[in-house]
């Protein structure tokens, strides 16, 4: 299956982001373990706990009853608090074990793209939910009504900006006719990375409407282009489309003007004339025109930018303005 290979490549491209997320989960799990270990528990015997911690070498050498009072902490968690923390701990440990599957989903044909992506984010997001549960428990904050739920699902709408900056990457397999990216624009915040692996036929330039100054956008049939996601901080989305679709990379790190940021390496010449599911031919054509417009505007401005090199950044970014106007016009 070619799609499997593309998913492997997508996962590879997101390897760094996945590792960061998983390591963060592991760090948090360990920290929570520390909280639980430093707590003696209501009825645990400190000397027994110490015997475990010191290992067999201490047997017959160290008097644990005598030592216990010196290493005993005064912090005591009540059973309920401990229980709340323990549950959160288990969620973190399970997420750590989940592996790559945690970050992957497939949208059924005629399915809702945003729903699939949010599903992954909400599941992986239970790491944030678990962390919050621990904080609530420690600070004796009454759990939100949703406390139980946040360990099962913690969708991005509930994430704060700090959490968004640690967001889990997502690889989603989706049919070309369901590739309606308008709905995912609002997910592109913090450090969110998404790779769309598109099956079947696709519109020629569906991702053009995601181009905004801080977002990395890659539309390609060559998985090597996915590397751009790793170069840029901040949110990024990439789609691996079938051959024949437009190819471009919008890379915020590449410069301040759109001309510097956007590289269009292929523009199909034929105008789309057939609807794709509910995506009309007109809409497809509009997207392609937008991209063509942005591509056409590249050359003169980048020349200007070269000329002005050395005198600081260009004062006005006309193409950038044009782009946002176009995008604004196309909002559905």
């Amino acid at each position: 299956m070619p799609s499997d290979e593309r998913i492997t490549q997508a996962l590879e491209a997101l390897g760094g982001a996945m590792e960061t997320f998983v390591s963060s989960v592991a760090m948090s799990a360990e920290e929570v373990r520390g909280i639980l270990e430093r707590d003696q528990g209501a009825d645990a015997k400190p000397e027994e706990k110490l015997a475990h911690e010191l290992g067999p070498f201490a047997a017959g050498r160290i008097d644990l009853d005598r030592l216990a009072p010196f290493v005993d902490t005064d912090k005591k968690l009540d059973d309920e608090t401990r229980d709340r923390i323990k549950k959160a701990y288990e969620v973190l440990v399970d997420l750590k074990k989940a592996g790559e599957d945690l970050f992957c989903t497939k949208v059924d044909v005629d399915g809702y793209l945003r729903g699939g992506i949010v599903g992954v984010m909400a599941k992986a997001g239970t790491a944030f939910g678990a962390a919050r549960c621990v904080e609530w428990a420690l600070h004796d904050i009454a759990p939100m009504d949703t406390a139980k739920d946040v360990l099962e699902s913690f969708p991005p709408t509930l994430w704060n900006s700090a959490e968004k900056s640690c967001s889990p990457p997502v690889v989603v397999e989706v049919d070309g006719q369901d590739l309606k990216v308008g709905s995912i624009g609002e997910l592109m915040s913090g450090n969110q990375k998404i790779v769309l692996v598109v099956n079947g036929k696709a519109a020629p330039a569906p991702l053009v409407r995601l181009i905004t100054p801080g977002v990395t956008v890659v539309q390609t049939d060559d998985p090597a282009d996915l590397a751009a996601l790793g170069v840029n901080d901040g949110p990024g989305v990439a789609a691996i489309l079938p051959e024949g679709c437009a190819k471009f990379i919008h890379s915020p790190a590449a410069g301040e003007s759109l001309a510097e940021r956007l590289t269009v390496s292929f523009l199909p010449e034929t105008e789309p004339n057939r609807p794709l599911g509910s995506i009309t031919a007109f809409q497809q054509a509009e997207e392609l025109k937008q991209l063509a417009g942005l591509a056409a505007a590249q050359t003169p401005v980048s020349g200007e930018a070269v000329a002005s090199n050395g005198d600081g950044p260009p004062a006005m970014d006309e193409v950038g303005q044009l782009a946002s106007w176009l995008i604004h016009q196309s909002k559905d």
Partner: protein
Amino acid sequence: MSSACSLLHLAEEDDRVFSMGDYEAALARWCPGCGDHSVLTAVQRLLTEEQLKPEDTVFVSGIGCSSRFPHYMKTYGFHGIHGRALPVSTGIKLHRPDLEVFAVMGDGDCVSIGAGHWIHAIRYNIDMMAMLLDNNIYGLTKMQTSPTTPQGTKSNTQPQGSWLPSMNPLEATLGVTNASFVAQTAEWIPSHLFATLKEAYKHKGFSFVRVLQRCPAYLPKLFEDAITDPETIELLVHPDGVEANDLEGIYKARVYHDPTDIDAARRYAEDQSKVRIGVFFRDESRPRYEETRHLPTLTADEKLAVLEEEFDRYAV
């Protein structure tokens, strides 16, 4: 890409806003007129501007006048032993990449007793900032010759005048493999000092800043010429370095120096005919040790599972 972090403290939105005062600890007790005061102010201003969390910021020093620095910062501090600020910083940053680490060293600390660590810290290129507060003399122990003492300067250890040509720390730093940020500034030009420290802070990698500074007690005349006659100072300016536009009126000698040009940087560093300040060299593509050595984080159970596998190799 951001690095792994604990998720525990993300839950609570941190809406603290820090002012200069939040970084001020004990009243600095250096001599009046000592250059350390300006550096302290510039650093506190930097922290304020960058809004660094005091609890996540660490100042590490060795021994000497300037090494009292951490005591005057309301952050974490490690006032260690003579010459060894860099190994301690290395350990802190490697074990806790989430902390912002600043090393403050004097010329005796860095260029003499700690010279070996200095060379290797440059080579490791860990993301931290190292400030060499260079007043060309041992102050705390009352006027002994340091490696950067100008030749012929009379001191208590070399009363006939120091025997050897002084060492040039910029040249040395620029000569070390994997140097990634080298700058020089002067404590009596506060805006340049601040701008340089800020560039150093922003740099990803080991940023080495030599701060030229006066010792009013033992070498009061050291930079007299430079202070009284701005002509003797040449500014290396560049958009990727320090532009110092505000200083155009005073410091007219300005050279447009691209900090990616290491050969030019070495030439500027070597030529002692002028006092040059600015960013000499900067290259963020140099490998950083903490990235080269990066490893995923494991839970205790996973670690023990790894150990079980090792046991299998030794099992009979």
